[in-house]
């Protein structure tokens, strides 16, 4: 297993402040490592990768890596990514968002990006809370869980990101966790190479804001929970149904080959230009 950390160091901007801003035990650091390993495994040059990040804990991720990076406004990471992809479809555009970024304020952009099937990889880091602003209840906080704004338990149901993206028409939908790092490498690299819109939801524990209030004594307890409460979707009898025991299915939920919006656009452009000649 040698050289894993060494190659990650090759992709970091060492003139930034390290260690990075994430709390001790935060899963975002593991996802960052996984993203770097996936890009390295695909052999993409650093200049061909664009990392677009929104606001929030996950938005800090774009600061640390040595790709082309954009740190955009809250919830609008996907719109910036759509513009970049349409302007230069040669680039691999990866969009890193948190659950508040992607589901709450940017929920509309997410469903329309999925409907358009634009060739962008959306990486949704779901820590089930608004971590950076002080632990408010987000749209991905499970029902009954305690946050700063819901001290007696959340009354609302949480969004299922995978189901919503499937319904909105994304052509690659997967879910991983930051505990299952090797599987996450696989999911992210196949999502990057997928032609259409691809979504990878990553469960990334937030020990500081979410875990402390919800009976997780430390970060290790949260990772143990992830280990025992997830099930591979391939092992389920009926992959379309959720397991009865409440475990979270992880793996690839949809993988359909569909041309992305930019491919269809340039095909139309070629056709029309051929008619004019």
């Amino acid at each position, binding site marked *: 297993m040698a050289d894993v950390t060494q190659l990650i160091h090759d992709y970091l901007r060492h003139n930034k402040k390290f260690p990075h801003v994430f709390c*001790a035990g935060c899963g975002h650091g*593991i996802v960052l490592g996984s993203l770097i390993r996936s890009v390295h495994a695909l052999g993409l040059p650093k200049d061909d990768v664009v990392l677009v990040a929104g606001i929030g804990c996950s938005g800090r991720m774009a600061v640390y890596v040595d790709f082309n990076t954009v740190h955009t406004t809250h919830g609008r990471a996907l719109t910036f990514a759509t513009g970049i992809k349409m302007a230069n479809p040669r680039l691999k555009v990866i969009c890193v968002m948190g659950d508040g970024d992607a589901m709450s304020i940017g929920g509309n952009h997410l469903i329309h990006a999925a409907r358009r099937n634009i060739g962008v990889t959306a990486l949704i880091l779901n820590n089930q809370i608004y971590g950076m602003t002080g632990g408010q209840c987000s749209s991905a906080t499970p029902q009954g869980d305690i946050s700063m704004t819901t001290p007696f338990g959340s009354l609302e149901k949480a969004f299922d990101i995978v189901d919503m993206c499937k319904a909105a028409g994304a052509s690659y939908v997967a879910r991983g966790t930051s505990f299952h790092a090797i599987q996450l490498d696989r999911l992210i690299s196949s999502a990057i190479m997928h032609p259409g819109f691809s979504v990878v939801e990553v469960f990334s524990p937030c020990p500081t804001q979410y875990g402390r209030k919800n009976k997780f004594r430390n970060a290790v307890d949260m990772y143990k929970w992830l280990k025992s409460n997830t099930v591979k979707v391939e092992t389920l009898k009926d992959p379309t149904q959720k397991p009865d025991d409440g475990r979270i299915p992880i793996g690839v939920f949809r993988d359909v080959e569909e041309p992305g919006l930019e491919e269809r656009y340039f095909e139309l452009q070629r056709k029309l230009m051929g008619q004019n000649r």
Partner: protein
Amino acid sequence: MSKKQKGQTRVCVYPDWCKGCGLCVAFCPAKVLVLNAFGKAEVANEDECINCGFCELHCPDFAIAIKPRARNGAAQPDPRSGWEDPESEHGRASPPEPTPEPNPNPEE
């Protein structure tokens, strides 16, 4: 894991980047790492390491590196990075002392 595959690696923890989350300590199958008095991960029994790579993949702060061990016990130097292994000097054979030039005039 057979016994043969143990002890072939050198585990390096970079203490400045470690935040002491304890993931590597809790999940290491061979109990190689412990948390020290400063709350940071520290290598306790390196010879038990089975080279599974869990700590290296799951360290959120990129503070752990597993390197193959050279014959004399030192980590093999990586020319690509300037990341110094703090213990590499101990295992390496010390360079030979420069022999003092014979004094041409022993009387003076």
